[in-house]
């Protein structure tokens, strides 16, 4: 006798944006699986055409309210590549600092509000607060510190106004940054506690053999700049992106799927960064990771929550270091003059690599644009995780299975707004 | 340079209201409510007819509202409020036992003292009767001091009339000549139909020794004042009560300016003679 099941999640919760999952099962076999992104398309690549190169950071920030700094940074990197300008070290440091703010805010939100409730069996962070008020309050405070850092440097936390091609409009004063130190020091300890707390969550046994792709920089745990590397031999500059990666368009989704040419799926995000750049974490972050039971790589996607917490420790330490060594740059930005050229830019958004490519004309007008956000890159990997996760677990009730599958999606902290520039989960059992 | 005109030390905030408890609430019309307020800090709130209070609703805001009670009975504060927006809606939603803030009284009232030995003609339109009610009550108390006391009152429909009990009593009283008119009326209506201006011609008073007090919508006040003037009432013997936005009632916020005057200080009651020019300027 065959058992046929359909599981459908029409509207995935606790992800940024609108998506769904549809799964068709025949016995233990996955017959059909679609991770759908129905967030309406907004056509950013098209509407960028004809805009001035200097407008790209502000316009592309509107692709995603959760990680605007990532968009602004990748856009700046690409435009600076096109214009052929180098960003001096002090301004790079400031970029890194504001980016730390975004990591703190985004990871804080995901760990405490979006992901932890899955492990502890709550519908959401607010419901969790009823039983663990102090914990949730700490999560909020931690996240707020990230937001505050972005506000001081960027003017506001969502769609900051201070980032521009070439650097910043205005650079902060020493005293503005010093005022952040006490909070960041508190945050660092709170992040350490976070690692210890999440390391005790119940994790399913589930390991996958991913091709991890992340940005790598010889001098630092890569955030705002670097080359693209993988554990299977990729090591390219951002400009070679189109040689290695491609995007395909599937019928069920408003988001393009990115893949490695010929090889297929790959995995970007905290686990990729951690596994590829472990050596460059601070010793405290490494020690906390080890204490939490992680080795130098992590291949259980459910444990990404620990990796995010480790990255929180890192981000706080890094922010403190950057503030400690801050010297106000002479000029807030270097001039970028347009020229007819194409530029590529990558940076590590909280969810993984964010790639931008622009072609501009001699007047500085954008001719074409391509934006590949982390969630598009992880789509195949997410679908594969789901396929692999099901065998041996089909005895579970629809409800439990559905919850666990949703959780498997949330492992990626998918950002659907990004992916469409992109969830409903449906499982059908035949 | 050191400013010695004012004493140093802590001064109370003049914007601070005092708590008043609603004792009673009557619906005058579907959107207009009369409240009787009890001062929770002082036994009395003395005022002059035509003055107003700033009434505060928790979390919503503060608005100027005329005092509609009897000046001889200052133990309670009576207000009639028409719900037209954020604060007035909130006030009208309150009931007995609720507490509001109130500060005042503020402003220049009706010149009832100046009118002694003369004819006192009071003309009201719609809710404009609220600020005039204290003048009517004062006029009745001091009836002997006036040659005559007339109230001409117009409203859109009989339902829109305020103080219906008062009106019936006044109608029956020999001390006051009351004429009431409405724009539209059902068949059982006891008063007139037509504009309030049409009542002026019929009322018996001696224009040259008349003081008129007028309150209603601005267009109505202009029409009434012109009619009174045409009958021979001196323009500076016609008083009107003007309305402008007010936030402080102390002369600080600047909002109640009407040309050269702050209505919170030189108004709300002003002389028509002085304001006729300004009233004809658009958007002043």
């Amino acid at each position, binding site marked *: 006798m065959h058992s046929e099941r359909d599981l459908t999640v029409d*509207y995935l*919760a*606790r*992800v940024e*944006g609108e998506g769904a999952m549809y799964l068709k099962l025949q016995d233990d076999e996955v017959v059909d699986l679609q991770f759908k992104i129905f967030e*309406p*398309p*907004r*056509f*950013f*690549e*098209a*509407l960028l*055409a004809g*805009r*001035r190169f200097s407008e790209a950071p*502000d*316009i592309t920030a509107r692709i*995603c*309210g*959760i990680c*605007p700094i990532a968009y602004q940074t990748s856009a700046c990197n690409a435009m600076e590549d096109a214009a052929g300008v180098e960003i001096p070290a002090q301004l790079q440091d400031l970029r890194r600092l504001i980016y730390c703010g975004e990591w703190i*805010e985004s990871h804080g939100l995901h760990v405490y*509000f979006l992901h932890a*409730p899955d492990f502890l069996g709550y*519908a*959401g962070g*607010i*419901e969790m*607060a009823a039983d663990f008020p102090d914990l949730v*309050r700490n999560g*909020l405070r931690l*996240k*707020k510190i990230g*937001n505050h850092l972005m506000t001081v440097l*960027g*003017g*506001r*936390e969502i*769609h900051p*106004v201070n980032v*521009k091609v070439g650097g910043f*409009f*205005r650079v902060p004063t020493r005293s503005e940054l010093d005022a952040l130190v006490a909070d960041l020091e508190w945050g660092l300890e709170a992040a350490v506690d976070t690692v210890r707390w999440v390391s005790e969550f119940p994790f399913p046994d589930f390991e996958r053999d991913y091709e991890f792709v992340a940005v790598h920089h010889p001098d630092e745990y890569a955030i705002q700049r670097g080359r693209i590397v993988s554990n299977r031999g990729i090591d390219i500059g951002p400009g070679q992106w189109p040689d290695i990666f491609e995007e*395909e*368009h*599937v*019928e069920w989704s*408003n988001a*393009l799927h990115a893949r490695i040419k010929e090889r297929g799926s790959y995995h970007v995000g905290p686990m990729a960064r951690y596994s590829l750049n472990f050596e460059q974490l601070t010793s405290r972050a490494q020690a906390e990771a080890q204490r939490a039971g992680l080795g130098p790589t992590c291949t259980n996607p459910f444990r990404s929550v620990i990796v995010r917490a480790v990255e929180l420790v890192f981000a706080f330490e890094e922010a403190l270091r950057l503030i400690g060594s801050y010297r106000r740059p002479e000029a*807030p930005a270097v001039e970028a003059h347009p020229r007819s050229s194409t530029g590529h830019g990558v940076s590590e958004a909280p969810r993984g690599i964010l790639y931008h490519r622009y072609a501009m004309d001699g007047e500085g007008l954008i001719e074409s644009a391509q934006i590949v956000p982390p969630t598009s890159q992880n789509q195949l990997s997410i679908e594969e995780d789901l396929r692999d996760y099901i065998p041996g677990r089909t005895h579970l009730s629809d409800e439990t299975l559905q919850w666990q599958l949703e959780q498997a999606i949330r492992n990626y902290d998918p*950002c659907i707004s990004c992916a469409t*520039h992109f969830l409903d989960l449906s499982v059908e059992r035949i | 340079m050191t400013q010695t005109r004012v004493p140093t030390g802590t001064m109370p905030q003049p914007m601070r209201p005092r708590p008043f408890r609603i004792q009673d609430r009557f619906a005058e019309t579907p959107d207009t409510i009369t409240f009787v307020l009890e001062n929770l800090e002082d036994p009395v709130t003395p005022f002059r007819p035509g003055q107003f209070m700033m009434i505060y609703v928790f979390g*919503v*805001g503060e608005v100027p509202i005329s005092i509609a009670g009897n000046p001889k009975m200052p133990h309670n504060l009576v207000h009639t409020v028409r719900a037209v*927006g*954020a604060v007035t*809606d*909130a006030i009208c*939603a309150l009931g007995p036992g609720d507490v509001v803030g109130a500060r005042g009284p503020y402003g220049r009232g009706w010149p009832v003292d100046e009118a002694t030995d003369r004819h006192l003609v009071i003309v009201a339109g719609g809710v404009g009767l609220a600020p005039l009610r204290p003048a009517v009550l004062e006029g009745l108390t001091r009836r002997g001091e006036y040659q005559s006391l007339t109230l001409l009152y117009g409203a859109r429909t009989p339902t829109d009339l305020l103080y219906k009990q008062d009106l019936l009593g006044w109608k029956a009283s020999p001390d006051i000549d009351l004429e009431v008119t409405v724009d539209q009326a059902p068949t059982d209506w006891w008063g007139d139909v037509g504009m309030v201006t049409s009542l002026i011609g019929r009322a018996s008073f001696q224009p040259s020794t008349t003081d008129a007090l007028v309150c209603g919508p601005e267009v109505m006040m202009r029409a009434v004042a012109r009619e009174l003037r045409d009958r021979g009432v001196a323009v500076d013997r016609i008083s009107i009560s003007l309305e402008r936005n007010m936030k402080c009632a102390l002369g600080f916020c600047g909002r109640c300016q009407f040309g050269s005057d702050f209505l919170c200080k030189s108004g709300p009651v002003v002389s028509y003679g002085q304001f006729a020019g300004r009233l004809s300027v658009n958007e002043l």
Partner: protein
Amino acid sequence: MNHRPKLAVWKFASCDGCQLSLLDCEDELLALAEAVEIAYFPEATKSVIEGPYDLSLVEGSITTFHDANRILEIRGQSKALVTIGACATAGGIQALRNWADVSAFTSIVYAEPSFISTLETSTPISDHVGVDFELRGCPISKRQLIEVVDSFLHQRRPNVPRHSVCVECKARGTPCIMVRAKVPCLGPVTQAGCGAICPAYDRGCYGCFGPSESPNVRGLAEWWTTLGVPEVDLVRALRTFNAWAPEFREVSDSYAQ
């Protein structure tokens, strides 16, 4: 606690930033969750409580047939409906398609345009259903969001001034950037609410809160041209996150000709 008002948060075409603003109210969030019942807010919680809802916050613009119908249903289930953010109040940046040929747009982005169903236009929610209050901004201000939610809880009108950004800029004490540095600024015709951030960070306001209560956009445009701003840049400046707002659109169209 007796009946708490039910709050729902809905999403249409948008970046999620405005609803994230609610989660960014770190100091108020838990108190808010006590004052209201968060009945529908998928970005924050799986749990769904059936309508009707006392207050619906709607983010995003209408860009698909499906969404044009969905907003009708939401309106039907909502006692009060407040739109949040430039997408919902003016069509957002995606309203730039309203000047373009959408099929061309689709083929620029997607390899298989036939998979994509979308409307020709991106339009504000108020073009489709009655709206009780529009909260502007790209993104909205947290402070104003709390004010609006609180005002609906207490049935009072939100205190959200509609005057120009200049009022906040002067209160903040920033020397006007257009006057002191000839930097084109949309502040004088843009609604306050952000706290006049841009000029404080040494750049001109780019109009993300949309037109102010009585914007003389043409007057400002003429002044910009005297400052040497090319007309094409003027048009671009008016065509960003509130491009489809009538007061901005009218002037950008007249300069675009």
